[in-house]
């Protein structure tokens, strides 16, 4: 099953010559990659399909392939599980909020870097620092920043002029904020870099032409630069929103979905369901639903990218 065993090192009963005849050269060299992906993605996906129709729990002591079928009751339950629905809604909220914040910050920042000034390169290097940090460490840093006796509370108390000790991470209303801020902090730099690259690659002469035709900066930005930048913006937003949709690391480190289920995102919900409550069948159904939605989105995205790639 391992990828290496399937790669061009040929099973004994097939001679090299026969293999070459069977599989054209170009297919043969794509095989290792293909088989790895199949092993790690396709086979589990098939297992998920099976599991989602069962109520299997590893604690029951029967092997998963002999689990009892419950057909589509898992899906029924999911739709009626307020915790799941809330997790989905919360995840979408996180995606929308983070995308809006990241995009606006990134665009605003990138526009400051259009013309050349001393230290520009160094400034860019510092600003993109967060995206290089290991996500778990970034979350760890935010964990410390948002501690009830941490620097954030101290800064707030300086601003409002009285002591401020608020336990951000254990407050059901506010605990999501540090998670989102951590995500925004870490990934705005990427958006910034993408938008900046897009801006730098804009055909300078079109902007120059608009300038000579007498257009103001605002008009040039809205009428000429923004439309030209659209493909880059769309790619950046799509790539980022798909990544944000999967958000797990900061949630796990900062709150583990708590307090209660107040910060549970889809990934966290599924982790808790599978690895805390061991409801594998149930979570498999959720996984399959998410997969279907993601694949649908991917399909749309790939068509878009395909067009851009030409």
């Amino acid at each position: 099953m391992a990828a290496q065993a399937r790669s061009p090192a040929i099973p004994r009963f097939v001679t090299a010559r026969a293999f070459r005849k069977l599989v054209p050269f170009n297919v043969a060299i794509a095989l290792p990659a293909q088989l790895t992906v199949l092993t790690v993605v396709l086979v589990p996906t098939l297992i998920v399909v099976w599991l989602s129709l069962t109520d299997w729990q590893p604690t029951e002591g029967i092997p998963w392939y002999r689990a009892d079928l419950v057909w589509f009751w898992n899906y029924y339950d999911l739709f009626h599980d307020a915790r799941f629905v809330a997790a989905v809604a919360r995840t979408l909220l996180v995606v929308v909020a983070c995308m809006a914040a990241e995009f606006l910050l990134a665009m605003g920042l990138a526009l400051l870097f259009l013309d050349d000034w001393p230290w520009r390169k160094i400034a860019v290097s510092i600003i993109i620092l967060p995206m290089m940090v290991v996500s778990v460490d970034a979350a760890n840093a935010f964990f410390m920043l948002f501690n009830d006796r941490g620097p954030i509370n101290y800064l707030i108390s300086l601003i409002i002029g009285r002591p401020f000790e608020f336990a951000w991470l254990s407050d059901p209303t506010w605990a999501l904020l540090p998670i989102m801020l951590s995500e925004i902090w870490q990934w705005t730099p990427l958006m910034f870099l993408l938008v900046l690259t897009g801006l730098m690659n804009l055909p300078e002469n079109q902007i120059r032409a608009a300038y000579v035709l007498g257009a103001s900066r605002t008009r040039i930005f809205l009428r000429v630069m923004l439309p030209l930048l659209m493909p880059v913006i769309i790619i950046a937003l799509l790539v980022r929103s798909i990544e944000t949709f999967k958000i797990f690391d900061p949630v796990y480190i900062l709150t583990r979905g708590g307090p209660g289920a107040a910060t549970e995102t889809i990934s966290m919900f599924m982790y808790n369901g599978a690895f805390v409550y061991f409801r594998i069948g149930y979570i498999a159904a959720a996984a399959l639903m998410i997969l279907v939605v993601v694949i649908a989105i991917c399909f749309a995205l790939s068509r878009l990218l395909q067009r851009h790639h030409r």
Partner: protein
Amino acid sequence: MFGADKAWVRWLKRTTVCIAIVIASFPIFWLISTSFKPVDEWQKFPPVWISSQPTLQNYRIVFAPKAAQEFAAKQQGAIGYKVSGSAWKAFGDSAIIATAATVLSVLFGTLAAYSIVRFHTGGDSYPFQFLTVRMFPPIAVVVPMVVLFSMLRLSDTYFGLILAYTAFTLPFSIWMIRSFIEEVPEELEGAALIYGMRPLHAFLKVTFPLIQGGVLATALFVFILNWSEFLFALTLTTGHVVTVTLQVANYVSASSGKLYGVQAAMGTVSTLPVIFFGYIIQRHLVRGLSFGAIKR
């Protein structure tokens, strides 16, 4: 592009950039600063920005089991602490897994990318199939993978994680290397073919030397992803194999996050190699993270 700014506009711009720089670097500063604080400064209020008595004790706890035991004995009760093992083990495991997965991912990725670019294998939409893999939420795959791995006795092994990491970084390898290969005119290989070379030989002899910088960048990029990975490490291991990210999380969870200085020390050392590699390939980050769609 637009001619000169007015003085106050320029001033405003510079100030904004400075604020952005401060915000971008502050959490990292805090992480590093805390890692050098003695225990009593961890939670002082108002916070200690830079310790006046910096100590290496936190790092000692992270790396030397003996120092950790002493510390645990002293702090028992005040701060619950029960992480065993040293960071050396985590670094070793992460190095083995990340390196092996990187080598496989880049090797398989190079071959597949070559096949896709030069032979148009699988048609226009074939590379997108790999992209889809990256779009999958790993948590959705992890559940059955745990089941599958336990059946195949792959859970909590190096090989299991290597396999998972290879598969989930292949999209990056393929797409990045593909964009590098596409920048080499096909006529170069064509010439080698016409003058008598076999295809793979021609690729290795003619095209590869021209893209090896790009392949190296891809490798570093993939290594960073592997090193930083958390979810697979968390779910596919049960204690025998420990990656650095897992070790960080262990410190956080072991003490309900109260072990600030130690957490910070572990965080600092685990993130430094990644930042270092990240700056080496800074030019290629955009290409990588946008799957080759946006180039410099």
